[in-house]
């Protein structure tokens, strides 16, 4: 069972509410669910839409063929008509002209005018639930999360009236019921923020920027319950340098932004490199360059992130592949930043950020916070040197005030073991080597090889990094079902690039990267790091995410037919 619902309308019509309530109800009902959104960079008007895909099978991404189109305005019906399946249905406001024979009318504006003219959207929720054969219990339970007291009653009424206004239509919607672990339904930005919070984040300083602001929103809400400070900085330069200051004093600190903000944070990320201050920065990518398409998705910042900042220094870049991974990756990023005293960039994107998915509850038992700070007891009268040379390049880290006699001096210039500016070439060389050494250790000890899906014996290997995993995973299954000998390699750690699995697999197969950008950046990275020739790339750069079927079809066209 694979059922796809699209809710569309103008910005400001309360689409997000419809989507969120329906999403949560369907989640509680026990469906697998993938919810994604397509927003314009404006507050009202225009055309926005959200997709809710449900199934009894696991879902990895959106689909563009629609079963049920919920049109909050006329434009929606027009724009998305083409996507409607043969047996698809359009749910539309009663006063609208019927532009499609498959339309079902709901007198939404009439009902709303009766009760509360702003509540058209809630009527649609009620009607949709009825059509899907679900009851109102879950919806009514959820409603208080979305409406303040004054309008709650109205909305319950609106919901019920909508419910009554139409008939049940679908009766074969299958839920995922067998042996399910406890699950949550979460969006990508919250998952990322949640992972950081679970890692003991004490300070998040950022400047609002779509599509990263959701991380800050999530964390800001937690301030009352946790020892956490969320500060909106005057600009990104302040944001990232504040985080470094926090980290210097010993607390876990992080910043987040999108590419344009990352461009302003570069210099500081380099500083975290040379001054060995743990720093985590999330870059939630959107199509660039410059302002680009603020509310759309792309994976165009890879090489920029990997080559962030002038000069050379150890850096890790992690591109979480999905919602579960977003949580565990940001938790892990904080550990790695602390362990190696380096900057870590979390490379998410709008597709990750603004979509929601049901995933297993997070396993807090498995989480271990590793601060890698010195123990005060070890430093009686021993002199403290912030950049002490050690075998693995990692110096003992104290925070200011921790030691009564030890001072912590950090520097953005090249420096000696005590942190003082130096200019001599020998010390420069040793310090560069010291820092490089940390990355060596990270590669040996903490780098995650990509995850492989597929049989031993394959002819093609799909390669993804970050969020293109989801749609590619679906394509992989479709291709497999066709009997094509294909495997899927999904990279999460992208810098340093883990090479072993890729090299092993590459020997006998044709390589295909699947990337949301126009220049196949991951293909370049693979070439520069492994000299492997990736024969094909399936690229997309319209700002809209891939669907599994799209990759499947393009694979057949571009890889097999041109093979």
């Amino acid at each position: 069972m694979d059922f796809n619902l699209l809710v569309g309308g103008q910005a400001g019509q309360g689409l997000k509410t419809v989507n969120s309530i329906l999403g949560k109800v369907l989640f509680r009902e026990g469906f697998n669910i993938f919810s994604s959104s397509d927003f314009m960079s404006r507050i009202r008007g225009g055309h926005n839409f959200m997709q809710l895909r449900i199934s009894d099978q696991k879902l990895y991404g959106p689909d563009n063929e629609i079963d049920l189109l919920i049109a909050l305005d006329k434009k929606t019906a027009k724009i998305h008509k083409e996507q409607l399946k043969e047996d698809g249905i359009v749910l539309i406001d009663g006063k609208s002209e019927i532009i499609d024979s498959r339309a079902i009318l709901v007198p939404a504006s009439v009902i709303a005018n009766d009760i509360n003219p702003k509540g058209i959207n809630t009527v649609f929720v009620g009607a949709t639930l009825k059509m899907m054969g679900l009851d109102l219990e879950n919806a009514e339970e959820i409603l208080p999360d979305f409406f303040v007291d004054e309008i709650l009653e109205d909305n319950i009424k609106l919901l019920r009236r909508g419910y009554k206004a139409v008939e049940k239509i679908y009766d074969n919607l299958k839920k995922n019921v067998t042996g399910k672990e406890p699950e949550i339904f979460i969006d990508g930005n919250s998952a990322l923020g949640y992972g950081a919070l679970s890692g003991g984040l004490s300070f998040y300083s950022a400047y609002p920027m779509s599509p990263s602001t959701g991380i800050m929103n999530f964390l800001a809400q937690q301030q009352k319950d946790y020892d956490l400070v969320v500060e909106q900085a005057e600009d990104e330069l302040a944001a990232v340098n504040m985080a470094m200051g926090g980290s210097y004093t010993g607390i876990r600190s992080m910043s987040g932004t999108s590419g344009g903000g990352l461009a302003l944070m570069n210099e500081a990320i380099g500083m975290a490199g040379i001054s060995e201050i743990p720093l985590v920065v999330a870059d939630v990518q959107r199509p660039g360059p410059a302002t680009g398409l603020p509310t759309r998705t792309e994976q165009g910042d890879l090489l920029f992130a990997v080559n962030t900042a002038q000069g050379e220094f150890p850096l890790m870049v992690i591109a979480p592949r999905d919602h579960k991974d977003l949580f565990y990756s940001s938790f892990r990023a904080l550990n790695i930043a602390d362990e190696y005293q380096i900057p870590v960039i979390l490379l998410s994107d709008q597709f990750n950020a603004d979509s929601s998915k049901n995933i297993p509850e997070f396993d807090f038992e498995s989480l271990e916070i590793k601060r890698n700070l010195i123990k005060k007891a070890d430093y009686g009268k021993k002199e403290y040197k912030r950049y002490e040379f050690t075998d693995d390049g990692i110096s003992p880290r104290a925070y200011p005030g921790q030691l009564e006699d030890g001072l912590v001096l950090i520097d953005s210039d090249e420096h000696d073991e005590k942190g003082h500016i130096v200019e001599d070439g020998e010390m420069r060389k040793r310090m560069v080597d010291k820092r490089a050494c940390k990355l060596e250790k990270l590669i040996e000890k903490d780098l995650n090889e990509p995850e492989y899906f597929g049989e031993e014996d394959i002819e093609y290997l799909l390669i993804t990094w970050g969020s293109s995993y989801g749609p590619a995973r679906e394509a992989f299954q479709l291709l497999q079902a066709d009997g094509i000998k294909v495997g899927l390699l999904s990279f999460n750690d992208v810098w340093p690039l883990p090479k072993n699995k890729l090299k092993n697999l590459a020997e006998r197969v044709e390589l295909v990267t699947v990337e949301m950008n126009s220049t196949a950046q991951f293909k370049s990275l693979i070439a520069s790091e492994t000299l492997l020739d990736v024969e094909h790339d399936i690229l997309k750069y319209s700002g809209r995410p891939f669907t599994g079927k799209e990759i499947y079809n393009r694979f057949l066209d571009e890889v097999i037919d041109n093979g």
Partner: protein
Amino acid sequence: MVNEQEFTIAAETAWCPGCGNFPLRKALSEALQEMDLKPSQVAIFSGIGQAAKVPHYIKTNGFNGLHGRSLPPAIGARVGNHKLKVIVESGDGCTYGEGGNHILHNIRRNPDLVHLVHDNQIYGLTKGQASPTSEESIKTGIQVEGTTSEPFKPIQFAVGMEASFVARSFVGRQDHLKEMIQRAMKHRGYALIDILQPCVSFNKINTYQWYDKRVYRLSEDYDPTNLDEAFKKSREWGDNIPIGVIYKNEKKTFRDRLLLEDDQPLVEKEFESGDADKIMEKFK
């Protein structure tokens, strides 16, 4: 008096002989010493420039950051450990030029810290270009016929913004400077001291003598809490340059506005990942 020279480092500096940075450092280390502080209780945040090398030449914790970014990491420090005494210290170029946006917004934020600006009215480290505070008439390799802007007036600006504590001093008045630093340290909130600091290598206009002839102490009956008077006073420059606390105004600090529960520094708090599991309820 505490252990003499508690804050003094013997190491050679990269400053020019005769530079105003030396007496500034002296006043600062004496001020700290007299306040019964220990080096590990103090952290100095600086940017890049000659002035910004201070953390290397004085015995405290130090964060020698990026050009223009001396203030933001200090805010991070106020979050992480508000028990540290935080001093921000950098040059006029670093503070008012590259870092202008941070001083603008930290006046609004009002963090509890002391901000010492080594105002030599020149870019020293990069060899003598005009800084925001340079006189209009200065001639340099870049400003071949003087600047293309009016000088930035730090005191007027800060008073105009109603900063919490605004003072001026001069390295040629050691006692005064020390007193200003100590008053700033005791002040609750953001305390800016613009310190006249001759650059003997590049600023041939604003020399020791130039300042010496002009600076005068504010009279005893000057009331720094009167904003309108302070705004007038803040514009005095030229033949007579007032030194002292020009404006003062106790108000809510940055930390007062945070949603933290108690007074324990964040860096000392214990946290277990499991504490966060209850948030999952929101996503069910």
